[in-house]
């Protein structure tokens, strides 16, 4: 690592701490114990030959422990094809890569922001709030000093303009699954505008080295689009004014069995909505409607014409994702330090990710006790059943209603992407809010944009319904 990196590294004056070790950069200002942990993360990563991703992952682990307390910290390190950067708290980072300048501010994120900026990278700047300007002759070729930031010009001093990492030991490890890589969401344009809802979220995963030039920037893991997160709690929005607010998406009428007596049949949809909402118990009389039935008892006239159905076939095979096996052959997210099943430590560097069927990522617990297995995408709303992507089987419906009518017909999509659980608010009337683990506040998520959530996140759907993402994975 020492013979490559950031070209000339110039420290900026300030009162924090600046470290340049093994080609990796750290800028931080916090309590001594945390600084120690952060420096430890930097040194460990450098000592093990880790790259920017490994650094970001280790630092994220340190920050995760401090969740809820903003730690001013920024790190950067080279990766194949670019630079990985992570910022938290009041720190700020700016990286100029092939797609122009990328700015990241930690205070805009709920936890931290990270990003993989595709190369060739020409400039990296990490700053604490009070940082001054760099002296043109100051250099920090290595070591830890007091300072307010760093400024690196990669075109200066003979350093290669494009940060080149040694070839990975194996060619089977693709960049997309490198530990702690920011997970790009599907390009925004595709991400569920209400009129165009069926998106395969994992289908359009840009390679880091070749991002689509004019698409929106990829959402960083764990949280996306800092500008959409107000750092203050948002007020509870008013409920949807009326249940019958015209939806953006008009469902096709349900195929109704042949009409019997025409004495005022209750519209199917209202029956379903009312029943599912539990409004007034069973106020709807369906008995003047025709019914259909099938005999199950063998004594009947239509005694078992078809062979007994076997076990329900698995409706869809599990998608393949890159992961690593622990010593006991449990398939794991390559980013996690411990096996999600048996808790054994995963020695990341010695494990080669391979493609395997993805285990369930956990469950969504709704406030009424409904528990949904996260093995595929869900469409959450008060009338999800007839949405096209549900009808074609690519997404499961999750019917969630509320007496105040604040849940939209198609409110929210829960989209699994690799090992991550993303939320996409589908332009719902009352919006979707998330409360990250350890944070007392709820934050609005932007519509039509994938937002990754961590286990322990509480999600408010509309005004009065909530659910939690629970998982023993991705901790």
């Amino acid at each position, binding site marked *: 690592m020492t013979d490559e990196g950031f070209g000339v590294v110039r420290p900026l004056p300030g009162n924090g701490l600046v470290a340049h070790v093994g080609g990796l950069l750290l800028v931080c200002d916090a309590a001594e114990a945390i600084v120690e942990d952060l420096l430890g993360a930097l040194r460990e990563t450098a000592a093990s030959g880790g790259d920017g991703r490994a650094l970001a992952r280790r630092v994220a682990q340190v920050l995760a422990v401090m969740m809820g307390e903003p730690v001013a910290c920024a790190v950067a390190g080279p990766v194949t094809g670019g630079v990985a950067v992570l910022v938290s708290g009041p720190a700020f980072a700016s990286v100029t890569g092939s797609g122009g300048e990328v700015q990241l501010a930690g205070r805009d994120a709920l936890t931290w922001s990270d990003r993989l900026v595709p190369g060739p990278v020409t400039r990296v700047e990490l700053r604490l709030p009070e940082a001054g300007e760099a002296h043109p002759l100051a250099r920090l070729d290595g070591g830890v000093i007091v300072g307010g930031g760093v400024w690196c010009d990669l075109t200066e001093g003979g350093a290669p303009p494009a940060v080149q990492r040694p070839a990975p030991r194996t060619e089977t490890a693709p960049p997309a699954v490198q530990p702690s890589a920011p997970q790009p969401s599907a390009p925004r344009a595709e991400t569920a505008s209400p009129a165009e809802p069926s998106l395969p979220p994992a289908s359009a995963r840009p390679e880091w080295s070749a991002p689509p030039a004019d698409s929106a920037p990829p959402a960083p893991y764990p949280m996306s689009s800092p500008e959409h997160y107000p750092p203050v709690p948002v007020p509870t929005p008013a409920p949807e004014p009326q249940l019958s607010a015209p939806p953006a998406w008009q469902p096709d009428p349900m195929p109704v069995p042949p009409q019997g007596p025409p004495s005022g049949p209750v519209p199917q949809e209202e029956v379903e909505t009312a029943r599912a909402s539990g409004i007034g118990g069973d106020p709807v009389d369906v008995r003047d409607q025709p019914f259909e039935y099938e005999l199950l008892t063998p004594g009947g006239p239509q005694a078992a014409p078809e062979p007994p159905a076997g076990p*329900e076939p698995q409706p869809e095979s599990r998608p393949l994702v890159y992961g690593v096996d622990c010593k006991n052959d449990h398939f794991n997210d390559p980013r996690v330090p411990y096996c999600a099943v048996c808790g054994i430590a995963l020695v990341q560097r010695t494990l080669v990710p391979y493609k395997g069927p993805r285990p369930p990522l956990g469950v969504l617990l709704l406030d009424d006790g409904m528990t949904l297995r996260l093995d595929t995408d869900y469409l959450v709303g008060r009338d999800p059943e007839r949405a096209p992507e549900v009808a074609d089987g690519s997404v499961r419906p999750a019917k969630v209603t509320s007496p105040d009518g604040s849940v939209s017909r198609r409110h929210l999509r829960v989209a699994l992407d690799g090992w991550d659980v993303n939320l996409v608010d589908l332009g719902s009337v009352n919006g979707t809010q998330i409360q990250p683990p350890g944070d007392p506040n709820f934050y609005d998520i932007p519509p039509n944009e994938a937002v990754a959530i961590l286990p322990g996140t509480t999600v408010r759907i509309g005004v009065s319904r909530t659910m939690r993402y629970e998982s023993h994975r991705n901790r």
Partner: protein
Amino acid sequence: MEGIADYEFVRSLGAGNHGEFYLARKPGRLPVEAEYVAVKVVGGTGGDAFRRATRELKAFAAVRSPYLVTLYDAGQQGGVFYYSMEYLPGGSLGRPAEPPSRERALRSIACVATAAQALHEEGIVHRDIRPGNVLLTDAGGKLSDLGLSQVLTPGATVTGMGDIGSVEFTDPALLQGETPTPAGDVWSLGATLHWAVTGAGLYGELPVHDPLLTLRKVYSTPPSVHAELEPELSELVHACIGDAAKRPTAGGLADRLYALVV
């Protein structure tokens, strides 16, 4: 609710997971000898869910076991799904007409384990074995009410309607999102056995008024067997809720329970 399809309801028999049971008069079209039947009414479902549920119920009905409740028909009216089955006046272990003796309770669970074995041999997992689904009969017991939650709400491991208390009888692996397996049913049988004999769940008191809290407690608390349970039963319950690969089969559990009550 006064009835559905051509069933006239006599009274409610209480809520089950994902629906409500009613006592009803048997319509003339049903080719069975009974005056009364039990009808379960499930909330509004789409046409697909109705067809999936009917298919599952047919598979269940096709399994031959004297210890499985007999299903009569399944249907829908105005989008409301129902199915009917034999009415057993003895009630369930969870809500018995009269409190069963300890021996009767053990025998009913042995019968239900036998029924579960029959289902498993046909590749069917019940998914919802708990005291409320162990129906008491003179001969012992019958297993009722296949867990249709996954069918009616695909992907659901627990459904919000009805009884949150059933999570304490559900294999935690299933709650965590793993696929239902026969071993999961054996876990439920063990929990049901524990409850029937000790009167306590494996997680102690649950805040059943708050589903989220209940689930969090179930997630965070390892199940523990009552210290005063006699050694034979304690060992049996431990085996049922232990390592999935080493659990007894449902049939094996039945044999050991029969041996205890004879």
